[in-house]
């Protein structure tokens, strides 16, 4: 089933006092295709959770429409939507054991005991909870509680799965593991899913498509690769991954940054000779090496900071006329690690420079 949001609008606060009104979701249009996992990504307060809660039916939209397939769902109560949600706090019923927590929805549907048993077995197996059926919630670890919340949702065989920052309460290691499990489970079950998070790494690793939101509006949507390599604006560029922002100028059909001149394809319409533009380059796209030919170097600089992170080394390099650039070198064990104060030269492929906007 596909999920379609049409001009969805949500305003909080009293109608009588305009000053108290806050627009949480601002005319959002979005299509989530059958079996797709779409992540809503953004800083806190961007409206992503409100959007999800409207889909679940916990908030009423102020305007616009929510379609599950062809059916308009605006007025359906939350208990009739069959859109199972995994809550940030897990919301496990503290008075029920694991089995009864997971079976809660099925019992409401008055399913036969045999059918409940059958489904339970499968779901316990899928989520790795077999053997814990009779545990009380307070006897579970954080990861196990998370699995119970997930199992309770998928056992419903919902037409839509909703995730509200489900991994934010887990420690880093477990979070990465659960990400992979969640993703493979979702793909196997082929359930249309909407996932809310503020963690860009989580969004990148789990999603078919990512929707970046700010102030209730969609800034950009696309595959993780799209968003990372071709962000539409500075906000998206900075929110997803690390980035160097540079100012350039169009000179003789190519882009001039600092002292260097690049034959960057200026496909972006409306750029003319002499225009100033804001562009970006990712730290790992910049090559760093010792200066061996001072005249040929594109950019020369001095290492200000070296951070060894294991798989990569991160440098802050000061370049005269450009300021500080962040540079990432991979496989540091093989090459040389540049110490603070050493002079280096930097280079990059012209196509790794991405123009964000024209500066007026």
């Amino acid at each position, binding site marked *: 089933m596909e999920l379609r949001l049409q001009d969805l609008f949500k305003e909080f606060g009293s109608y009588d006092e305009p000053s108290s009104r806050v627009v949480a979701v601002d005319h959002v249009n979005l299509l989530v295709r059958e079996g797709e996992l779409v992540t809503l990504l953004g800083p806190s307060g961007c409206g992503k959770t409100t959007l999800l809660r409207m889909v679940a039916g916990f908030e009423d939209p102020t305007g616009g429409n929510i379609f599950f397939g062809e059916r308009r769902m605006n007025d359906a109560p*939350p*208990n009739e939507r069959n859109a199972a949600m995994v809550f940030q706090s897990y919301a496990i019923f*503290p008075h029920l054991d694991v089995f009864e927590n997971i079976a809660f929805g099925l019992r409401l549907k008055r399913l036969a005991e045999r059918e409940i048993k059958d489904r339970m077995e499968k779901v316990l197996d899928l989520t790795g909870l077999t053997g814990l059926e009779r545990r009380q919630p*307070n006897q579970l670890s954080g990861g196990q509680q998370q699995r119970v919340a997930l199992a309770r949702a998928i056992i419903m065989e919902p037409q839509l799965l909703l995730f509200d920052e489900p991994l934010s309460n887990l420690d880093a290691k477990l979070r990465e593991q659960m990400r992979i499990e969640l993703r493979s489970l979702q793909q196997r079950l082929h359930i249309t899913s909407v996932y809310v998070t503020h963690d860009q790494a989580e969004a990148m690793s789990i999603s078919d498509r990512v929707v970046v939101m700010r102030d209730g509006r969609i800034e950009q949507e696309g595959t993780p690769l799209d968003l990372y390599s071709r962000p539409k604006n500075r906000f998206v560029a900075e929110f997803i991954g690390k980035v160097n922002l540079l100012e350039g100028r169009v000179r003789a059909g190519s882009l001039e940054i600092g002292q260097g001149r690049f034959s960057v394809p200026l496909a972006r319409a409306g750029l003319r000779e002499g225009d100033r533009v804001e562009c970006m380059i990712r730290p790992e796209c910049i090559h760093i090496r010792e200066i061996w030919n001072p005249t040929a170097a594109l950019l020369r600089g001095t290492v200000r900071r070296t951070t060894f992170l294991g798989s990569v080394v991160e440098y802050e390099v000061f370049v005269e006329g450009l300021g500080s650039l962040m540079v990432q070198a991979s496989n540091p064990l093989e090459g040389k690690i540049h110490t603070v104060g050493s002079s280096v030269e930097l280079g990059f492929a012209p196509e790794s420079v991405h123009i964000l906007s024209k500066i007026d």
Partner: protein
Amino acid sequence: MKKLSTAKRQIELLVRDPLLAILVGIVFLSLAIFVVYPLGAVLVKSFQDEQGTLSLENYGRFARFGYLWDALRNSVLVGVVTGMIGVCLGYAAAFTLARTNIPFKKLFHLLLILPIISPPFTSALSVLMLLGANGLITRKVLGLSDYNIYGFKGVMLSQVFTFAPVAYLTLKGVLDSLNPTLEDAAMNVGASRWQTFQKVTLPLSLPGIASAFLVVFIESLADFGNPLVLAGSRFPMLSTQAYLEITGSFNLPLGAALAVVLMLPSVSAFAIQRYYLQKRQYTTVTGKPTSSSSKLVSKNARLALTSFVLVFAMFILLFYGTIFMGAFTKVWGYNYELTFRHFLYAFSVGMDTIKDTLIVAATSTPLSGFMGMLIAFLVVRFRFPGKGSMEFTSILNFAVPGTVVGIGYILAFNRPPLLLIGTLTILVLNFVFRYVPVGIQSGIAVLRQIDPSIEEAAQNLGADGLTTFRKVTLPLIAPAFFSGLVFAFVRAMTAISAAVFLVSAQWNLLTVQILNQVGSGRLGVAAAFSVILIFIVLVAITIIGRIVPGHEGAIRTVRISEGF
């Protein structure tokens, strides 16, 4: 205008949910009839003369009759002194139990709160038996004859004993919720134990101390039994004076005016406590279990505190032991031979009273329990016009001294269609509306702790509103519900200040019976009734405790999931 249209929108929402609308309507109506109307009746009556015409005569009497002024001054004086002494004792005891590892903690705790579950004037009885003219200590031990315990010292002593445990319980809660890590942190940066206590523990518990003081002050002002037994004729106090004006002189308007005067300091103290202090309490609920640091207390301090708690507990044992012995002693003060005749007498004249008391308590307890949870649920989970005033009104009867409520009920329900005087109904209604606030407050506290997403999760899985309440909310608030029940039952068994106006020949209560026996000098019989009463209460608490479903873990889990 703006408010009006918000209200209109909320009413529209109510209409969409007729069950909710009906519930809200019923609650409002019953609060109006059984809380607001009686209090209003007292107020109106106080501005009438005996013929029923409007007049300021009753208040004018304060200027002319010294004993009315004295009554006000005495009541406030006793309240303040009792409050201060009670808080000092309560804090020391609470600190000892919360911050040191003294042995038999649980036993001490139970002993210290024992006075809370017994009728408020059992201590008055003990004081009489120990320190009265024929008291065990005054006459037998010290050989004094005609020692006069009546007046300020008697009332105060008895009230400190009765209400210091209330302060203890409040302050124990405050100290338990103060994270001991803060004390560890202070010592870690070089503060000595005394400095840590002085600069961290004490300032953090100050709002709690002020709050405990006001609670004791309110209880002391409202107290009826201790003054009636121990104040004596030369030390008039407001609550008893109002009672005497009405039952002795049949002067309802003057009684009402005294009630209004009594109400002013208690309601102001209540308002300060509730709306000012409560917001300033530092509680650090993290959901993580915090082990209390016993490093704060040095060996010597621990010894001193332990001995203090020991002495405190001994006094409680002495007071109760006196009652117990008194119940089996032929003529206290003269003939200390053992006897059962007080019990035989109590059962022969008092069987009906015991039965009445049980009926009243057994009827009002579940009613106030359910009503408490219902109002708590409505207030926390729904939006409707007048929600704030619903919460306020439902708490009002608790802040107002029982004397005022009792007078209000006889004024309000003495003519058709609400002719309830002398019936079982009026006693039950009185207890229901008087003690429902405790259920409401504990219900609200628990409901606010339950993460709303737990209820959302149930809806998300297909449960409608009613199913969610039945299968998720109700089991989670069960512990609060049952503790509300215990409280309502204990109070229905032991309260007197309002009930004393409402009992009749057909329906009498044990507490009133005990006071009558004290009044006619039959201390042994009074003691026997007290023993019976305390016994019933203890049995009932045990039974209610047994049938509480095993959800002790529930609330803890809720806290944990909230702490993330």
